[in-house]
């Protein structure tokens, strides 16, 4: 089930809110209710793989209990638990990628491809489960003996499908004790509405145009077309992902949970290092906590630091998708992290405008690698962006058929909302303070909600010229 679906907005969400409100003074029963609806939420999209998630929860809960009860063996238990989790993730997500790669290198079919459907959210719930057992091993949290509470942590529907990745230690107390208050309800709803608008209005609009441009025969793609596709995809992915995070955080808040922020206007960054402190913060935090720091972080000399960064960004790329273009995207970001540490960051700190442009262009080009189906396609698009004199620059007709007044207006809002408005708000704090949670803002959010629902309902309209039976 998607947050941006009418089944969620008009059936699931109101029922869950009303049910939780009725049980707001009975946390134990509310947890069971939220667990049941969360499993239903996941089963709605994965009626079979919900059992896989339940298996993962059960395995991690058991290992958690054993780690607590058998401290002498906790290291071995941790290793086995991590291996089981990674095997599950590896099989469902990476088996065919591995098979194709090995077969291509050896030029023969050593491993045959299998028809494996990727369970939705497996990367997210696996990482959350790993976070629990590792934190338990480290003594950063207490064992969760109630399997239902652990299940709720892993499967809680607001963050199950698309994050943020919630670490167990950040939420264990809230599972046992939290309050559904009027203020949390309204601030959560506000956050949810903004997230829905970001996804349905801005991201989907950018996606419409970006998809058309990326679908063009590459011979027809002009320099202008390539840049526009990259810029619009940059906006699309930000508003899609951060929109989902806003909805997740908002929903969590409605039910009394406080999740950590996942995005902090990443496109205002002045370096790739800063970008990764603002983009998908929960994933960066997870890799830092459980990979980078255990490898030594930046405490074992420069060469080791660069190696650790390569490992982290290799894994970051892999986490996003089982394809070499994702790996290249990850390593591309790792490369710039290293270059900045080699001295570029000092230059960037001196020149504000240059640093903003550098970061934007670097990220933009990186998104092309992320978006395309193959490396060769990505390189051909990027070639048009960085070697414009070699290609056809611009075709007026190409652009007029893609854009309309409505889309241009939405894209303008998208550009302004990616950091410009917030920058102005910080410069005029009284304006920001008067706006936030005011009646005018409430009306503005109501308009966003109305238009989002109109777009979603209209999206179900699928007419034909002649009657289809």
């Amino acid at each position: 089930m998607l947050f941006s679906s009418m089944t969620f907005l008009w059936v699931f969400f109101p029922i869950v809110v009303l049910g939780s409100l009725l049980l707001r003074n009975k946390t134990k029963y509310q947890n069971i209710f939220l667990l049941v609806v969360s499993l239903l939420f996941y089963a709605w999209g994965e009626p079979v793989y919900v059992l896989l998630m339940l298996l993962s929860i059960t395995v991690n809960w058991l290992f958690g209990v054993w780690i607590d009860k058998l401290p002498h063996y906790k290291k071995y238990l941790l290793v086995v638990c991590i291996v089981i989790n990674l095997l599950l993730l590896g099989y469902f997500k990476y088996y065919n990628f591995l098979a194709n790669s090995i077969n291509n290198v050896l030029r023969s079919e050593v491993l045959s491809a299998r028809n494996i459907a990727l369970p939705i959210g497996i990367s997210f719930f696996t990482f959350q489960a790993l976070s629990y057992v590792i934190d338990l091993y480290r003594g950063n949290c207490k064992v969760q003996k109630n399997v239902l509470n652990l299940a709720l942590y892993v499967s809680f529907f607001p963050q199950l499908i698309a994050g943020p990745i919630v670490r167990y230690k950040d939420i264990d107390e809230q599972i046992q004790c939290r309050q559904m208050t009027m203020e949390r309800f309204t601030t959560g709803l506000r956050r949810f509405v903004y997230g829905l608008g970001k996804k349905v209005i801005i991201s989907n609009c950018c996606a419409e145009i970006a998809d058309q441009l990326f679908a063009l025969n590459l011979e027809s793609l002009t320099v202008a077309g390539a840049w526009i596709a990259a810029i619009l995809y940059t906006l699309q992915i930000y508003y899609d992902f951060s929109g989902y995070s806003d909805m997740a955080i908002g929903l969590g808040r409605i039910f009394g949970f406080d999740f950590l922020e996942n995005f902090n206007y990443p496109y205002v960054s002045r370096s790739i290092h800063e970008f990764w402190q603002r983009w998908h913060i929960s994933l960066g935090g997870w890799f830092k906590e459980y990979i980078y720091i255990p490898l030594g972080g930046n405490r074992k000399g420069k060469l080791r630091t660069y190696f650790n960064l390569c490992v982290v960004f290799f894994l970051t790329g892999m986490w996003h998708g089982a394809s070499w273009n994702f790996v290249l995207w990850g390593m591309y970001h790792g490369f710039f992290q290293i270059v900045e540490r080699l001295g570029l960051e000092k230059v960037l700190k001196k020149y504000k405008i240059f640093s903003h442009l550098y970061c934007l262009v670097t990220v933009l080009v990186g998104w092309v690698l992320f978006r395309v189906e193959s490396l060769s396609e990505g390189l051909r698009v990027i070639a048009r962006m960085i070697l414009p004199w070699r290609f056809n620059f611009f075709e007026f007709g190409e652009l007029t058929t893609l854009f309309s007044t409505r889309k241009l207006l939405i894209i303008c809002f998208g550009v302004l909302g990616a950091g410009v408005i917030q920058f102005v708000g910080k410069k005029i704090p009284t304006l920001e303070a008067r706006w936030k949670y005011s009646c005018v803002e409430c009306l503005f959010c109501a308009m966003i909600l109305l238009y989002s629902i109109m777009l979603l309902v209209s999206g179900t309209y699928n007419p034909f010229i002649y009657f289809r039976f």
Partner: protein
Amino acid sequence: MKKSNNALWVVVFCVFFLAPQTFYLFCGKYLDSENYEKRELAEKPRVSLATMAQYPVAFDTYYNDTLPFRTQIIQINSLIDYYGFHESPVSKVICGKDDWLFYNPRGADGDPIGDLTGTSFFTSEELEVMVENLVQTRNHLQTQGREFVIMINPNKESLYGMQYLPELYGADYNYTKADQVVSYLKEHSDLKVVYPKEEIQKAMREFPKYEFYYSTDTHWNALGAYIGTQCLLEELGYEMPHLESENIKHIDSVDGGDLANMMGLSSHIMEKNSYTIDFIADASIKDVSNPVFDEHRFISDSLNNKKLLMIRDSFGNAMAPYIGGYFSETYMPHRGDYSVAMIMEENPDIVVYEVVERYVDNLLTFSTVQ
């Protein structure tokens, strides 16, 4: 946060998440819930163990097709898009200049825009196959003593696109897909091909105050059909009276056509190019069509004792009023109802295969041979 502001947010929740379903329970039956989409809407899925895995998708599809206030919300969104931004609310329709609408199914139902830009053109191999197929059909009919004529009618986009479509990258209005096919068929065979594009363009110049295609529909109107029929009959050796302005009557207050209907705005965007022609056939015609089928069947006391079988698409509908009086019997079934056996059953003297440009791919496979 102030308590009054909290209350506002509760109102927002109630209005947008609770009220629609609640109010629809009481007032839904009084609202317009007609199906404008020309497809069967999803039925409510049954819950059963056997179909449990498919239930969520089936329920989502059903719920999306039956949302509370769905028709009203779609219409409001369409009105905002069309009148506010001059943009089509559906991707299959392009809003052109002067309220002209054009069809852009991107291959799902032909590709009129691709027919202009060349992206849907045939390869030389495909054209060879087409010629071979049609010549075989012609020869087969010839052995039975029947005449065979192919009629290709231009897309509205091909005739009116230059004037009313937004600027299209790569469009060549002088060489569209139909032009490609017609020129190839004429160069590589002696097939009889009727292609009224030039004649319609000539008529557009002769009658500048009239349009020959509907502005809100994919089809030609009575004037375009008249010229097209004239071309076909001329090929068959018959003469229709020249179109005269005094015979043309404009019809006011006509609802929008199939493209306006696709946008859900057929009662808001009126058709301005609807006409009738005072046409009197030389013979007395009796319409003996079977209302169950999508067909036209006429018998007449025409002195021409020939029977015409015209396998057609919807462009043939507007030709029907003009054709019946020229043959003793005319049968015009839709190509969807055509079968090879029809040739022997109907035993026509003349077989015409009529197709609009966006469906010209059908010429690759149309055949009268078993």
